[in-house]
């Protein structure tokens, strides 16, 4: 407490330093004046009186300086002195400084890069006002086919939610949509959102130009207006402020630009460049049904309502709604609802987990690096024992010595941290490359965060500085403490041999910890790599080589013309030179979204759920999907002929167990339309390699009139044909934007990006830690061999062979490795349990995995100790015995 009061007084002086000087000056002057007056009263002449006063007073300048000194920050001065001292010692050993700074810089950079991604993706993905009060309000569907998934709202259900709501100040709805922007140089497909007017007010985003939507624009009769993102405004409209109020063409209709949103704002989807009000939704769906679940909802919690209460309240409201009008009166599906904090809701849960695991791994690398540096520091402490002992004997306090010894690692850490921050920028770029540049499919609605926007921001820099400082203290404290508490007499006498078993024991313990950590990382990386390669070798059921896919948005507003466009597109594409096969499909293998439907099957009581796709006859040939029974579609299956379907093998097994499905019938319950099964095709993993083979029903695009993607198998490089295919589309319809141009190989790779990320990065971290551990083992054994030179000399003089000496060192190393396995293996098993949900076709506890990683660690440890051990065998006994 006293200490604190002094500190406060010191601070007070520090912050009004001239005040302090002025006071002192005035006070001393007053003293001199009074003295002189007194002297004059005693009869001196004025000049003499003044001179006498000054003599009596003493050296005023010196006294002022001494007074000021009292308030000086002594520890600040000491710190500066220690700093200079540490700088000098480091300059004398540039090798140590370089190794230490490089180790820290690399591991700090890795940590910073990973943490920046976590910060941007998981912790602080958006910067909305009052984001803590915002919640994602959703429905929850439990169905037999896909389990429990969060669902969006239908328009009528959302209206009911707004009426019944008790927990939220306000609720906003929105929907992801793509718009076709025409009337600009090239017709553009623009990602965007349809939002209710509350949306912008709720998240606290105002227009930088013009206005956001008003409540009237939520009504069907609302004026057709749009808002633009800053990027689209600058890109397509050249940043012209005159765009406000201008009529542009969106989806072929004239609309007015009402405003431009601030730079960086991309909406809840993270991708939006254009926003339309709910009136646009109501024009698209004039009579939205209860079952059309396509609106997401955000609510801002009322003050005093906890997230848990809000969640329970929504669940109760939905139960009430379901009681009144059940969504699925036939049973089967169960509907419920809930609310969760917005900051958590839009984060890809698998990515979140991968990132935290990765962060753990990078922290491990930092720890392992710290262990190496601690070992190096211990070695340096040993080398300086005599110097330190002399200084202790001369009266330096142990506290001062500890501070001084700690200054060196802290200095190294700050240097490493500074270099690390520079490197982290690059690391972040690399990491951003491993993240998808666009949204990838998943069941949950995930906000896209553009990796290109990742920057190491100020709070992260401060964190990085603290991290490196912490690392410095971590690896410096034990060696510094040991150096400062060594016995004086021992230190003064001691050479290397006096190093003492305590020190060796400590260093061994550090190496054991290091090896154990490395084993954990190796095991984790091994599992992820196995899992990833299992994914890569998974048969999708469809061939993906030399296929390019794309889609287009014809300007025609009716389904017939639209359908005709795609038919013609397919026909002309097939005729293009270099094209082997062209087909249309509304779903792509490994791409994910499948439109589920409910069917009734001839001879079965219950309705079945299945994925369904519309494809053109060439689909099976293009993707080399085998027809295992019956036939594929042909050109005879037209709009006039009876409805036919091809079903997948899984569907055949599930719908018609033990029977021949060909010739049997299925029925669509809504339309009562019957279709005959004409063939059975091999299973295709539409949901990506991780997906289970579910039942799939294909129907013919010639009969259904659906649209989707054009897929083309080429004879050469598929990318080379995209230009020609684009021109085809533009020739058919100059207003039609062509988009989503991807090769099937890109699509398949995108389906496994999380696993790739985890495998590659964990692999890199594990390799890094293995290298660091090897350096650590090498260092410790080099030192141990040097310390035991005389011991080995005596043994060899007494007849030990070189082989005996070698075996001694290797045995020590084997013991350390063995000890490291004791905590290492259980810890690795623990980690793999954590990973198990991320693994694919790999058993987290598979013995082979642990055998290989243990083997790898053991062989690296052996290699790292064999070099110093060979040095031991070359000791000349005579030299060793003479040598101090």
């Amino acid at each position, binding site marked *: 407490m006293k200490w604190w009061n002094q500190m406060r007084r010191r601070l007070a002086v520090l912050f009004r330093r001239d005040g302090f000087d002025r*006071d002192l000056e*005035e*006070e001393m002057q*007053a003293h001199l004046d009074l003295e002189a007056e007194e002297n004059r009263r005693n009869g001196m002449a004025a000049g003499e009186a003044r001179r006498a006063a000054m003599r009596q007073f003493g050296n005023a300048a010196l006294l002022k300086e001494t007074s000021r000194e*009292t308030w000086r920050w002594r520890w600040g001065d000491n710190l500066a002195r220690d700093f200079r001292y540490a700088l000098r010692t480091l300059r004398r050993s540039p090798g140590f400084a370089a190794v230490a700074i490089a180790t820290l810089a690399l591991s700090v950079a890795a940590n910073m890069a990973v943490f920046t991604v976590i910060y941007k993706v998981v912790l602080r993905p958006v910067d909305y006002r009052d984001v803590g009060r915002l919640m994602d309000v959703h429905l929850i569907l439990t169905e037999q086919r896909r389990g429990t998934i969060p669902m969006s709202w239908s328009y009528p259900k959302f209206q009911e939610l707004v009426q019944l709501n008790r927990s939220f100040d306000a609720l906003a709805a929105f929907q992801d949509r793509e718009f076709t922007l025409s009337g600009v140089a090239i017709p553009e497909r623009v990602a965007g959102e349809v939002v209710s007017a509350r949306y912008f007010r709720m998240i606290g985003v105002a227009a930088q130009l013009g206005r956001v939507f008003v409540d009237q624009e939520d009504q069907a009769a609302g004026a057709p207006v749009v808002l633009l993102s800053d990027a689209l405004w600058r890109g397509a409209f050249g940043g012209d402020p005159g765009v406000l109020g201008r009529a542009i063409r969106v989806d072929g209709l004239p609309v007015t630009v009402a405003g431009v949103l601030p730079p960086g704002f991309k909406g809840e989807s993270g991708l939006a460049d254009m926003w339309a009000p709910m009136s646009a939704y109501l024009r698209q769906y004039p009579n939205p049904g209860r079952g059309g679940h396509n609106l997401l909802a955000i609510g801002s919690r009322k003050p005093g309502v906890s997230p848990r209460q809000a969640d329970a309240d929504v669940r109760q409201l939905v139960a009430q709604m379901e009681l009144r009008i059940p969504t699925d009166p036939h049973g089967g599906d169960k509907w419920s609802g809930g609310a969760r904090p917005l900051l958590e809701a839009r984060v890809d849960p698998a990515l979140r987990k991968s990132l935290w695991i990765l962060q753990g791994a990078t922290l491990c690398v930092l720890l392992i690096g710290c262990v190496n540096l601690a070992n190096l520091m211990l070695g340096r402490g040993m080398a300086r024992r005599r110097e330190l002992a002399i200084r202790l004997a001369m009266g330096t306090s142990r506290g001062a010595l500890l501070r001084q010894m700690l200054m060196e690692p802290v200095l190294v850490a700050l240097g490493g941290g500074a270099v690390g921050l520079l490197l982290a920028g690059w690391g972040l770029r690399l990491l951003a490359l491993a993240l998808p540049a666009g949204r990838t499919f998943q069941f949950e609605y995930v906000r896209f965060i553009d990796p290109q926007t990742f920057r190491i921001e100020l709070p992260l820099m401060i964190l990085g500085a603290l991290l490196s400082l912490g690392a410095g203290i971590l690896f410096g404290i034990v060696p510094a403490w040991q150096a400062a508490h060594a016995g004086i007499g021992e230190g003064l006498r001691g050479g290397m041999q006096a190093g003492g078993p305590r020190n060796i024991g400590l260093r061994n313990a550090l190496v054991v910890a290091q090896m154990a950590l490395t084993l954990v990382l190796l095991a984790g990386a091994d599992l992820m790599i196995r899992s990833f390669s299992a994914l890569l070798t998974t048969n999708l059921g469809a061939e993906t080589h030399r296929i390019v896919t794309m889609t287009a948005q014809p300007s025609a507003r009716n389904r017939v013309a639209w359908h005709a466009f795609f038919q013609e597109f397919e026909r002309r594409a097939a005729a293009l030179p270099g094209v082997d096969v062209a087909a249309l499909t509304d779903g792509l293998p490994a791409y994910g979204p499948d439109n589920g439907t409910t069917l009734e099957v001839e001879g079965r009581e219950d309705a079945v759920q299945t994925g369904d796709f519309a494809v053109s006859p060439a689909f099976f040939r293009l993707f080399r999907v085998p027809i295992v029974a019956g036939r594929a579609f042909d050109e005879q299956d037209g709009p006039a002929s009876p409805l036919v379907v091809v079903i997948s093998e899984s569907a055949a097994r599930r719908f018609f167990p033990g029977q021949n499905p060909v010739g049997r019938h299925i029925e669509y319950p809504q339309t009562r339309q019957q279709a005959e099964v004409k063939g059975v095709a091999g299973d295709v993993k539409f949901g990506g390699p991780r997906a289970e083979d579910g039942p799939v029903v294909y129907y013919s695009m010639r009969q259904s009139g659906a649209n989707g993607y054009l897929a083309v198998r080429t004879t050469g490089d598929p990318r080379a044909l995209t230009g020609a295919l684009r021109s085809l589309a533009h020739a058919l319809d100059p207003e039609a934007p062509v988009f989503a141009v991807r090769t099937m190989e890109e699509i398949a790779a995108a389906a496994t990006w999380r696993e790739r990320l985890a495998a590659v990065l964990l692999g890199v971290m594990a390799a890094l830690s293995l290298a660091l551990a090897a350096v650590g083992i090498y260092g410790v054994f080099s030192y141990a061999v040097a310390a035991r030179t005389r011991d080995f000399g005596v043994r060899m003089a007494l007849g030990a062979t070189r082989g005996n000496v070698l075996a001694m060192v290797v045995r020590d190393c084997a013991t350390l490795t063995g000890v490291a396995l004791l905590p290492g293996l259980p810890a690795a098993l623990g980690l793999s349990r954590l990973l198990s949900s991320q693994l694919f076709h790999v058993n987290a506890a598979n013995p082979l995995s642990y055998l290989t990683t243990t083997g790898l660690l053991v062989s690296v440890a052996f290699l790292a100790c064999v070099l110093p051990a060979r040095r031991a065998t070359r000791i000349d006994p005579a030299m060793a015995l003479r040598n101090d």
Partner: protein
Amino acid sequence: MITRDKARAEIPPGTLEMLILKTLRQFGPLHGYSIAKTIQQTSEDVLQVEEGSLYPALQRILLKGWVTAEWAQSASKRRLRVYQLTPDGREQLDREISQYRRVSEAIERVIRPVTEQPA
């Protein structure tokens, strides 16, 4: 002048603070000049404060929180910095006096003529 100075003694190091605190306790709040004069007068001009050295000492005890300082106006309208003892300073003074007594008694015992010591 020179002879008079010789009759005066320098204050032993470290005791100046004690003298200041004691003076403040005895006479209440004082400014630097009168502290110096008071010490000289109460010691009957034996103790000679190099007057300027009073000020670093005052800064030290200010920092420790044993005194507080405040600007005040004298009858002759001069601004003077007046020091006042704090409760902490009072305690410190007691400690220092008893410490000083112990030390000086010990010194006294050591330098007492040998014959006077009990056998």
